[in-house]
């Protein structure tokens, strides 16, 4: 009886080994910052498309909200234990996930970082464009296309200490510094629409001469826009958001929101899978892979709406 069991066990192990060797499709774990926003859903669509094209098994996980740093850390650990071929992570905060990366390294799993830099020396590559660099681009756009003759800027930002929002603010600030643009105030909007609306109302009372409002995400931009709209005399104020969410695109179409930034979520998701497969197949890849971004305004919103409708499978 015992012998039979051992025999079956050996057979079982052999079958498992052979099946993995024969099937040859890689098991890749992708850890997001969150799953429930338009942005991450678009990234996921890109990842899924890549998985289909390259015939690999991809599991996508992500924490409840973009503040759940520990939850993400634990998720990475869980993925390492699943015996994967490659680990791909968009770290919520740089360095917080490095301890988990060390564990992956010990287990011999290559680590890819995307979307946000991790400051971890042993990563295979970073895929994406740093928020800071995109923000520089947006700053340039503000300088050259929006406030061409100078003007007054207000910034409403997400949580302090959140790398994403820090980068977005600093990039724009560094770019408009030399120009004839005055930053009237920077205020917190907690990344939430209702709060941002309150904050904007208060700012409008103090500053009579606001020309442009930059919010570090679209939710806050739509709240700020609402505050501007309720004051009928001040509708000339332009509002710029970030993320290219469905609501923001619709608002640009309706001539309300001035612009938003699209970090090319779909392409990034697709590229992540593409480069991981390349690496696993033994090809050499760059240490830093840049993804293009776009600034969406009234001149080019149509194609982005079309693309997002395809990804979300509904009309915007």
């Amino acid at each position, binding site marked *: 009886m015992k012998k039979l069991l051992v025999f079956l066990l050996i057979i079982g192990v052999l079958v498992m080994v052979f099946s993995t060797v024969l099937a040859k499709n890689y098991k890749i774990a992708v850890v997001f910052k969150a799953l*429930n*926003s338009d942005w991450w*859903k678009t990234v996921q669509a890109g990842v899924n498309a890549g998985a289909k094209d390259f015939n690999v098994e991809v599991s996508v996980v992500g924490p409840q909200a973009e503040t759940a740093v520990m939850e993400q850390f634990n998720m990475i650990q869980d993925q390492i234990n699943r015996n994967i071929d490659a680990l791909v992570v968009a770290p919520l905060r740089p360095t917080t996930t490095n301890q988990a990366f060390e564990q992956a390294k010990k287990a011999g799993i290559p680590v890819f970082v995307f979307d946000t830099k991790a400051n971890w020396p042993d990563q295979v590559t970073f895929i994406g464009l740093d928020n800071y660099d995109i923000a520089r681009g947006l700053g340039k756009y503000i300088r050259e296309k929006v406030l061409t003759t100078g003007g007054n800027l207000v910034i409403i*930002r997400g949580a302090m200490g959140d790398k994403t929002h820090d980068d977005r603010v600093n990039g724009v600030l560094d770019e408009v510094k030399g120009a004839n643009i005055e930053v009237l105030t920077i205020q917190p909007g907690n990344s939430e629409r*209702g709060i941002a609306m309150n*904050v904007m109302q208060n700012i409008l009372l103090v500053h009579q001469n606001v020309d442009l409002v930059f919010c570090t995400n679209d939710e806050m931009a739509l709240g700020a826009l609402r505050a501007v709209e309720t004051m009928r005399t001040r509708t000339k104020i332009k509002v710029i958001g970030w993320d290219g969410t469905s609501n923001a695109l619709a608002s640009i179409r309706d001539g309300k929101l001035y612009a938003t930034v699209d970090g090319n979520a779909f392409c990034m998701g697709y590229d992540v899978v593409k480069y991981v497969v390349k690496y696993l197949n033994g090809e050499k890849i760059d240490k830093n892979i840049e993804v293009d971004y776009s600034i969406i305004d009234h001149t080019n919103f149509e194609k982005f709406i079309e693309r997002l409708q395809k990804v979300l499978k509904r009309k915007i």
Partner: protein
Amino acid sequence: MQVKTNEVFGGTKNRAGWFNIIFNKLGALLALILLMVALGIASPYFFTLRNLLNIAQQLAINALVAFGMLLAILTAGIDLSVGSVLALSISISSILIVNVGINSVVGIFLGLLTGTLCGMINGLLLTKFHLPHPFIATLGMMNVARGIALIITKSSPISGFPEWIQFIGSGSVGPIPTSFLLVLVTVCIFHYFLTRTSTGRYIYAVGGNLEAAKLSGINTDRVLVIVYSISGFMAAVAGVVLMGRVNATYPLAGLLYEMDAIAAVIMGGASFMGGIGTIWGTLIGAMIIAVIRNGLNLLGVPPDVQTVVIGSVIITAVYFDVLRRRQNEKLSKQTYYEMMS
């Protein structure tokens, strides 16, 4: 129990000076006045009519959530689910109104019903399923309701509501914001409910001493279920104001609103131990929070400093209240000794 109700309704007759009387009765109000004077000096925009009306509008959502929270805290409980229940109920309303296209009044009604039901479930989990502390039932509900809101809205915002909903959130009657009027009406109803109806009085009794309340024949389970149902209902009402204010529903609406609501209730002089607290106090607590946030914006205080200030003000305001209560205790002891001698 009797002593507590006396204290709550201002029955403590002490022979202290006028300062003590003001300090006793108006701990939180005093903090609010000091804060407003300071901000008035610091910013010339603070005492403009426009700004005061802005504040009135900005405090409405937190105040409405806090009123429900007050009831839970009065029974020595807590309701952590309010922010998520808010999101779930307005998600249901929005889907019904915008996507399904049913009558908006019916849609809002069903949203309010959803909030009430969530609260009722919290209450039943606590009383019939004997979960050890409302912290647990409402923490569970917080996650469940948020999750369902995300699922049914597919994590996307919904917008485009009829005029009357926007009127509740951002309209005004004369110069007064509708949402603030709603707050005032609610305060009056709650005041009547808590002081003049038997159920209202039972709430204090349950919080003062659950066992004693049971022994004196109060159906404490029924009281608790009512309390959590009202809390859920109030979250949903606040949700309607939010919907109208930003003219949109988004699944992360109300995130962390429970924290501001708890802060408002505690600053308003309610005790975590239950049995102590008034609706007026909670209104003042909500005002304090709105005034701080507004003042910091007007002054252009950097975001990182703002968090420090808000935290410090919460602690200071509650400390005011602790001082007040100590003074009270001292006085009542004094009276006791004098009576004995």
